[in-house]
């Protein structure tokens, strides 16, 4: 099996296919600020109404929001793999005989309750005490929950792709979206077993497996996916995760900003504020989460870092738990640049390729170099002149 370098882990591991020699100029990516998420599941309904409201798709929620730590669709989906994997073993390293990927099939019952654990909380009721967090003093909520929006990660090492015996799953050259060819699939469900995020789902009516499509009909038009555009909590930003600091202006237009995409800044700049979900599985997921700042870092370290004793990647801090603490603090008290980028969240349905942040104004340009966002950070109050006006009509 080929070896691939995984920057999320800071080391090489096996993967059945060779990667391209050069990274794509463009790759689908997303950042989710869990601190803004209100668990309304509008994203889930948006996704379902767009893609999976057909026969045999009744149980499919490509997009779902889980309440950690008790939620899970399918139930307990992450616990089993965490238990099965050795330390610093990816799902590819841990593959069993004849298979490419270590995984498991979630049983029907596990898919039955998409809202399981919705809004549940973990911890002791604070009898005679209060619950509070104070990040500077490493104090976190000791009764806690948080909302984890879950979707296909359009991984750079997709497990579904690795597992498909018919090679019916592929990564699009132009944008990295991972698709399952509905005409070639024979319903073997290797991908259903392999994906550690459990997003490929089998349709018993058609006998074919379906997987999330990254809203490619929208991406092709320069719009963001439905789960992003529908997010009333303004928790999400979608865009080109591969656009780094050296890239030219959006659309080649000199009027547009050049350099990093806003999500690239949040994920790859020196003030990284967003982390991948279970990077230790080895798939290089491309959805990144600004972690909840009230939640104990021990849990988040297991969920959002390689979770090894020795830290091997380039994230801040000397240990992964320290990385988490640093990122939590950055999410709680964002820099001006990050605060500026947060104003782009939910501002437009257009896909924001480049941006700039000034003292009190944030702008964004789409892939054609058209300006699509222009907002102040602080909005002044408007007062109508004239004695006859009132706020209590």
């Amino acid at each position, binding site marked *: 099996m080929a070896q691939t370098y995984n920057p999320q882990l800071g080391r090489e591991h096996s993967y059945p296919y060779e990667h391209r020699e050069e990274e794509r100029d463009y790759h689908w990516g997303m950042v989710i600020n869990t601190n803004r998420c209100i668990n309304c599941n509008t994203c889930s309904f948006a996704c379902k109404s767009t893609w999976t409201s057909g026969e045999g798709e009744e149980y499919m929620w490509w997009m779902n929001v889980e309440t950690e730590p008790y939620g899970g669709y399918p139930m307990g989906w992450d616990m089993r793999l965490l238990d099965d994997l050795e330390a610093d073993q990816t799902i590819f390293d841990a593959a069993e005989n004849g298979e490419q990927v270590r995984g498991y099939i979630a049983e029907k019952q*596990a898919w039955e309750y998409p809202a399981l654990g919705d809004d549940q909380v973990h911890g002791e*009721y604070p009898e*005679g005490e209060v619950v509070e967090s104070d990040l500077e003093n490493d104090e976190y909520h000791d009764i806690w929950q948080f909302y984890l929006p879950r979707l296909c990660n359009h991984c750079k090492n997709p497990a579904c792709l690795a597992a498909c015996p018919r090679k019916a799953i592929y990564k699009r050259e132009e944008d990295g979206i991972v698709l399952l060819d509905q005409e070639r699939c024979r319903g073997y469900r290797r991908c259903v077993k392999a994906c550690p995020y459990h997003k490929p789902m089998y349709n018993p009516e058609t006998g074919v497996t379906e997987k999330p499509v990254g809203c490619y009909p929208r991406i092709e038009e320069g719009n963001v996916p439905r789960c992003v555009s529908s997010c009333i909590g303004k928790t999400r930003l979608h865009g080109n995760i591969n656009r780094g600091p050296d890239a030219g202006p959006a659309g080649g237009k000199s009027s547009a900003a050049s350099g990093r995409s806003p999500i690239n800044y949040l994920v790859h700049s020196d003030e990284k504020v967003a982390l991948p979900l279970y990077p230790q599985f080895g798939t290089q997921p491309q959805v990144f989460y600004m972690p909840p700042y009230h939640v104990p870092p021990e849990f988040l370290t297991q969920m959002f870092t390689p979770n090894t004793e020795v830290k091997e990647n380039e994230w801040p801090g000397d240990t992964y738990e320290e990385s988490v603490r640093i990122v939590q603090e950055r999410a709680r008290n964002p820099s001006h640049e990050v*605060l500026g980028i947060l104003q782009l969240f939910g501002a437009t349905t257009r896909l924001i390729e480049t941006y700039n942040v000034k003292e009190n104004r944030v702008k964004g340009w789409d892939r054609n170099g058209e300006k699509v966002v222009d907002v102040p950070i602080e909005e002044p109050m408007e007062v109508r002149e004239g004695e006859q006006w*009132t706020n209590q*009509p």
Partner: protein
Amino acid sequence: MKLSRRDFLTAAGAGAVGALAEGAWGATQSTEPITSVDNPLKSYPNRDWEQVYHDIYAYDEVDWTVCHPNCTQSCALNFYMKNGVPIRAEQVYHNEEPSVGPSGYEDAGVSQHWNPRGCMKGLSLHRRTFEPSRIKYPMVRKGWDPEDPNPEGRGEDEFERVSWEEAIDLIAEKMASLEDNKRFHIFNAIKADGLFTRHGSGRRLASVFGGCEWTEYDWYADLPPGHVITTGYQTSDADAAAWRKADYTIIQGKNLIHNKLADNHFLQETRERGGKMVGVYPDYSPTVQKCDRWLPVRPGSDPAFALGMAHVIINEGLYDPEFMRKFTSLPLLIRADTGKYLRAHEVFEDHEEPPEDLDTQHEHNDWGDFVVLDENGEPVPMTREEVGEEMPTTPQLDVDTDVALVDGSTVTVQSDFARQRDNIIENYDPETVEEITTIPADKLAQTAREFADAEKGQWFTGEGINHWFHSNDALQRAVFLVQAMLGNIGDAGQGYYNYSGQYKIELLDGYPHYVNPDGHSAHGMYPGYAFAFFGGEKLDPHEVRGDFDRELDLVAQGDAEEPVMPKNAGSYTMSKPSVLWTMNCNLLNQTKHQEHVIENFVKHPDTENDLFIVSDMHMTYSARHADIVLPVPSWLECEYPDITVGPENPFVQMDHGVMEPIYDTKQDGEAVAMVAEKLDEKIPPEERNVDSYRAYFEEFLEEDGDVTNYIQETFDRGMTTQSIDVDDLEDGPERLDLKTYPRIPFYSQVHEDRPFYTKTGRMEFHKEEDRFIELDRDDIDHVESVEGTPYGVNKKWEEAKDEENPLYHDEGNQFYYNTPHPKYRTHSSWGMTDWNLIWASRDFGSVSGDPEGTDRLVDDFSFPTGDGESEDVAPLGEAFVEMHPSDAENIDVENGDYVRITGKRGDLVVRAMVSERQRPRSAGDMGQLTLWHGWWPQHFPDDEADEDGVKGYNTITNIWLDPLQETDDLVHKAVFGDPNVSDIVDEDIAWHGAELEHGYEETVWAPTGTNRDDLVDVEKYEEADWWPGDARRDDLVEDYIGGSLQPSGSGSSTGTSTPGGDD
């Protein structure tokens, strides 16, 4: 009902994942070789198939409308249509195609910060439109006869399909035969959801006909009386855009992250901007997740918390004396002997007296002038207009002295500040407050200091608080006191918001022109009275007022036959509804003390309610009990457009249908117009209340009629809408013309020195109205609940703490019954929409369902007649009650078992969800049970002990009437019109010349429904022998939560480390 083990193989027939059986795995072994794909990570040869998803995504056209249920938010949505059917909805954005008209909310003059708006309910509106509970055609109950209404058959008889003409004729005939037109009653939940062409037209009919109108606003605890008591204003809520300007937010008993979804981000954004958030809740409300600190509070003790905050602020001198002097009653002098504000004519010879009796005072808006002490200790008169910079002197705040009166006597007076301070310092120190609330004293004090230190502080309380008999006034008055002492009023990021109910209606200030045409105005009606005192058995009028010692002097009023109302409450309407027509309202599902209401008001032979008409989209519990059922279209099917406005956003929006109606439905406006037309036929001109009823609804009836004319005429009569052309609303939302954007309550009071809408012109803390004094609630105190307390009921702490509530101690009702607003429903609407029901049912929401549950839902849900085609409803979920694990363990209940909850007024059986978030009894006496509100009866199992009993979450709630709120002499602003500027607005503005009002006013001042203030007990009913697979039982879960499930190894045992590269 039998709770049998689920048979998954049977259930698999429902579709989904049943076929995912193990055997199929063998198939992968016989894979044919694939040669055409080399490395799918790099490239893929044939991508033509991708057209599949382009086809799924494709649509023919886009049309837009507005989703505006009773949630206050109102969101414009684009509906994507294929073959005339909406396939999905998307929110609208600025500048984008396809969007609302050309530019979404941009035309409304707001920034992209408002994008996007519209939650999961709007996104499933098309599924709600097509779901099987829709009412398909008009129906009449078979047992009903105009001459013999036979109310006992309600809810049981079958229905018969009739034509619209027949149904309308029956209604008009009954109305025409009324001897007293006042006994025609229209009931709608919230007027502002369908202002013109829907139930607003019902109000218009009631007005011209001379009938009554009820709204659920008053009844459903939507009134926050403390606001009216303190400021004279209905409820002082700001635009959501103002929230994020706060440096410090206290959020108390309000689950804002689940019931203000659309614009919630503005609150979450405060924290990114350095803001701090502190939550005060008895349970770990989902909103606690967003708080920096959670102060767990004993249910019902909230006012004491706010008073404890006030204690620290006063004791440590953290207050803002200038604001207090300028805008509050705190410097005004109060007579120690009478408890009345000292009047200027009592002190100054030459000062004119106000009229002697109260009625004339109200009539002249002259309640006398007030008195302060200047810096030299000299009394100075102060009129209600002399606020802010216009004060004649700088008054002292702290006064306790004797003042010589013109009659030669001397009277001891205190400033209001001295009065409040003395009481608070004596009774609400943080340690005492800890005893009352269980909130640690040091953390309360720390919170108070931080809050006082913040430049801008805002405070939210919610409707849950309103449900406590005493919290709704005392907590609100106490919060206002803190905010006034800190000067946290009148700017963005400051204030005290309640967001209970939707007084949206005020913002459309030309509205009286439509609903009260030509000076005809429907009588207001308070539902609590009707349900408590009309029909069969009446409730005890003392008992429901917490007047256990029977001290209140009650009198009969209106149609009432026996004493029901305290003296001096004469403005409260009491009329028995012979004809009751509900629109936009699932009255009987949502009503409190449900069993009493059903058995005595709805089904009792003596009800005197001869005709009960329900207009609804769905066969709700209420529709099931109607005599005549009228089907209405969904917002997607409406033929006539309508208007909506909301209290936390600045928009006026107009909806319109996007598809052909799928059933034989009519909008309320059209049905009402048809009734009006019939009334002209049936009632001779000389007996009519107006020349022609039909004339008021011509735009609905004439061939070339255009109902938008009604809308434009109304816009032209309102300050907020005068500049808006109704045609422009067809292209997208517009912004209302108000003093400020974002709208900040009392901006002009604080920045332009205009009086508040009270007698004193100031935020008023001490109240001098007789009833307040009689009840010893003239100053601000925490009073223990009338029922929901372990301590002495209806008493202040000093007395209450050493007493025992027998209901708690002897009868063992030791839980508070909490029924907060759900997020996947708006009240009971979307209750049967498949996706919403699955999610609302949480652990018990199944994508393929429980076969037993299927039967139950379908049985109860089917139309009870052969005519109405019965379609199966997907068995998707059921109701549950949350309780703490330790309390569940006490009664041997595990997650998923069934429990019976029993209160003084009824009981119910429901599934239990064991939940660590609930307050256990061990945390300080009162435990809490949470049953999210708005479930339909179908979501509850039968109770074998009472199979025909009333089912629902409201069987154990109560009807309480607070006599404090039955006062005729409380001065306030009317719903419409700002008396401060009513003389200078144009004469064509509907509220030109409006003055202050007093006493009862629908949606402003009435006893609010403090209906959940009760104690319940819970017992095991039946063990479930199946429950959804429960992740919490998994052996792995403990390690998972602790972050130690995966062993963390050394790091580089299997791979080769190479530096560099992005993630």
